């Protein structure tokens, strides 16, 4: 296909008084992996729900694979795989059955189901656990099963809603390997996450959301260069000095962020510490490379405290 795999234009969704999504524009090119980054409450999950027809936009247009939502939502869903944030595996089933049931729900023809299930289990590297009960799986295996299950009908588009939330670092990197392989195979992936590192590792392209809209979009390295420059100056100093340095940096038009007891002044390549008053015996200085997390914090105002 020629157009975008996923397209949202001026999408608005309110829940009562709250505007969860507020004029969202987002295009995802076929075969790319886009990370939807944003703090909790930025509208990521609502966006995902609208793409699967589980929330209906108040206004704006949405399409997936050229199919208009919500009118052609069922056709679109047949060609999409969804890995939900909440684990919804059927506990009573075996691993193989959990996938088989979804092969039927996704209308894989009966004769092709055994092969489709084998393939999905291979993706999830759970072939050996086929006959085990879902109950017996570890947290990481359950996540892999959710991903394999979402791929049983060889979807063209995969939605991943916070795919590694709540998992330990080792399992997380194992899942990153799995998602990275899918991306290499050309599946279009939209992945919501609030882990910066996850987006940095996996996404070709990142959309940063805040307050229901996209506030920045691009390749992670370009976003860093554009919004926070190449270097950050990390300043450790007593609180009163930090306040003074912050004020001087802001006056000079430099983005800043607080992380615990230290202050980061961004675009550090453009000034010297003396310019922002960061001198003296009680001031500790360290230069580091600017990262996507700096962009995230500067643009969303989120403290980044819960960011891994």
């Amino acid at each position, binding site marked *: 296909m020629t157009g975008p795999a996923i397209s949202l234009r001026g999408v608005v969704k309110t829940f009562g008084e709250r505007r969860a999504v507020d004029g969202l524009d987002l295009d995802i090119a076929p075969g790319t992996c886009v990370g939807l980054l944003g703090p909790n409450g930025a509208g990521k999950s609502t966006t995902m729900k609208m793409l699967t027809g589980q*929330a209906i936009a108040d206004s704006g247009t949405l399409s997936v694979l050229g199919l208009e939502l919500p009118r052609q939502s069922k056709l679109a869903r047949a060609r999409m795989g969804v890995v939900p944030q*909440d684990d919804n595996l*059927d506990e*009573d*089933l075996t691993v193989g*059955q959990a996938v088989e049931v979804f092969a039927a*729900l996704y209308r894989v023809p009966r004769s092709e189901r055994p092969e489709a299930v084998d393939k999905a289990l291979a993706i999830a590297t759970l072939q050996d656990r086929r006959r085990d009960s879902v109950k017996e799986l570890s947290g990481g295996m359950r996540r892999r099963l959710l991903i394999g299950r979402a791929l049983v009908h060889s979807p063209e588009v995969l939605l991943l809603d916070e795919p590694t939330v709540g998992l330990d670092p080792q399992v997380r990197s194992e899942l990153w390997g799995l998602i990275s392989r899918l991306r290499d195979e050309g599946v279009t992936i939209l992945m919501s996450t609030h882990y910066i590192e996850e987006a940095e590792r996996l996404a070709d392209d990142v959309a940063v959301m805040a307050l229901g809209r996209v506030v920045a979009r691009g390749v992670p390295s370009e976003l860093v260069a554009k919004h926070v420059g190449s270097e950050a100056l990390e300043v450790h100093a007593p609180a009163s000095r930090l306040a003074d340095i912050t004020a001087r940096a802001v006056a000079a038009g430099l983005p800043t962020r607080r992380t615990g007891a230290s202050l980061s002044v961004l675009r550090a390549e453009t000034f010297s510490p003396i310019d922002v008053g960061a001198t003296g015996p009680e001031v500790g200085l360290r230069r580091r490379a600017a990262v996507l997390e700096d962009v995230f914090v500067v643009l969303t105002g989120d403290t980044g405290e819960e960011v891994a």
Partner: protein
Amino acid sequence: MRVDRSAVGGVLLRNYVVFLRTWRSNTVISVVDPVISLLAFGFGFGALVAKVGNIDYVEYVGTGIVAQTVLFTTIFPGMFETFFKRDYQHTYDGLLAAPVDAIDVVTAEALWLAAKASVFGLAPLTVAMVFGLDPAAGMLLIPLIGLVTGFGFACVGIFIAALASSFAAFDYVISMLVTPLFLFAGTFFPLQGLPDWVRLVAHLNPLFHTVELIRHAAFGLQPLTDLGHAVFLAGFGVLAWAVASRRMQKRLVA
């Protein structure tokens, strides 16, 4: 909203595969419970009341409990299982992300519960036969009666689950709705002895029509009257399904 046969089939298959792994506990409760009721009422009351009309009390209650079984094994899981799947297991999130709509989910869940109930209803019937109920050709209709009734009550349960925001809400429904439904249907005692207005209201109770139909299937059909009962039950089923589907759509799709 339109029903989609492939989607309904997929959800039914899911329920079937889950059932294959859980049928023991699921079936035992549904079968043992009515049998206990039958024995308790049949022999407890049976000692006081020999006959209702010209039917032995144990046979009277036996046929009544078939209807009660259909009610209990559809309205309760319609409420509790649906609520649990929606809010705790997130089962419906998974189904709706697939090419399945709320109306397909409601249709499949109700059909599934109704099909099970039509079979579970045969347990007390069989036990009643052990205690003297004579088999009759008309009894072959009983699973069908159970299916239609069960579909309607499953939809009522699903409708209540779609309205409820916690399990606690079900307590009210059980006292205010389910208890009168099964008591004022002619299951354990005939309605003739009740005040006129109660009898009149009881005629709006779908389970009353089920009980009448089942008794006629067992003791002799009355074609014209029974056609009326059947039409009432079919209408009840369609109405309950429409209301449950609409409500569940509102609940599942924001």
